[in-house]
């Protein structure tokens, strides 16, 4: 079982072969509420860790989604365009956003599930 890592901006990422799959967390989807629109990056785009590369909009608010690692976007979840509610229904599986082929090492500030749970708690 591969490890899921988390960012302080409420993305999760999981290694999936050569690339890393990225989405937003259960906490993030719950805070956003009903997702009505997702804007995804172009496949092939070279991104820097921390760069805003996607947008998720709920009925009440818009939020950026950041690249948690540097690399190249190799795939995006086209299903979200037609069915953005997948982000609410299945944030950590069918509701993934994009896959990045990494350039270099993972950033040092990623958290594991326990660390992320504590981070969320500290925000409450």
């Amino acid at each position, binding site marked *: 079982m591969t490890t899921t890592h988390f960012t302080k901006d409420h993305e999760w990422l999981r290694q999936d072969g050569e690339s890393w799959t990225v989405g937003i967390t259960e906490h993030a989807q719950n805070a956003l509420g*009903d997702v009505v*629109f997702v804007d995804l990056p172009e496949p092939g785009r070279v991104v820097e860790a921390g760069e805003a590369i996607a947008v998720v909009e709920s*009925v009440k608010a818009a939020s950026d989604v950041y690249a948690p690692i540097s690399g190249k976007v190799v795939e995006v979840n086209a299903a979200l365009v037609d069915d953005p509610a997948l982000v609410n229904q299945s944030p950590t599986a069918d509701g993934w956003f994009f896959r990045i082929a990494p350039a270099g090492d993972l950033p040092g500030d990623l958290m594991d599930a326990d660390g992320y749970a504590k981070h969320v708690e500290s925000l409450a």
Partner: protein
Amino acid sequence: MAEDLNETPLADLHRELGGRMVPFAGYAMPVQYPQGIMGEHLHCRAAAALFDVSHMGQAELHGEGAAAALERLTPADVQGLKPGRQRYGLLLNGRGGIVDDFMVANLGDRLFLVVNASRKQVDLPLIESVLPAGVTLRPLPDRALLALQGPAVAALVPTAMSFMGIQAMEIAGIPVIASRSGYTGEDGLEISVAAEHADRLARHLLSLPGVLPAGLGARDSLRLEAGLCLYGNDLDEDTNPIEAALTWSIGKRRKAAWDFTGADAVREALDHGPARIRVGIRPEGRQPARGGTAVMGGGLVTSGGFGPSVNGPVAMGYVPRALAADGTALTLEVRGKPIPAHVAPLPFHPHRYAR
């Protein structure tokens, strides 16, 4: 959440119902319940939803000449308002700018006012300042306000009133002042009740078949689809009633006499046409254009989001008069990208008032 927020008399009930509390106009208010904004919105259009709007300002004007006194500040026809009737009006400043929008009702022996939560500290001293001897303003901070909205309301709480009627009545034995009005575009009631009875009344209304609680999030998406203005977004002190497309709220008699604060500026805007005007805007595609989005060619979105009943993004805002005709193509700058849109008639979702 900040300690200094006010609570409404329904604070315990909101927590019990799982309301997600957010600060709004100095109050801790539920933005949504576990059902979520989308579900609450659609439920209101399909059946009935209960909103706590107790943060709004309620007041009474007593005394001979109360209506004439209020007319110094508003172009609404208050003196012509019959007992048992309510009307929408605007408070204006000397430049014709909108200080607030409000409801005024004739309760026979007094006028009853409902003003915005965010403006009550401005409105009430302003009204006080124009009152002659013998007319008194009585704020009603010990009253709660509940809005029960949706097509099922008429059967759940039957009344003889038509749209914009108002009367004292009893609901479940609790004395209330109810008006057949609201902020959703649906039929329904706004119910003023003594704070001490508010919790019992709310629980009674929630026990009626098909009534679910709804928060400020759904209230906002419902009013936007209904084309209704939100003070602070769509209206402010630098916007006059003509620009705001609220000319209909100016009484016919008032447009002959021009005897209200700001009348010169309003008359000028009416005679020569305003430079900009509030219109409905439909962005193409699915992405919402929020308030603050620029309209290329010199306009601004003042309210925008996703309309659950429209099933698409809806917005309103101000555009130059040359761009204001229905169907005019617009380009919005949404998060740095040009998004095509067009001017669309308001409301986006048809009103279903009991006229």
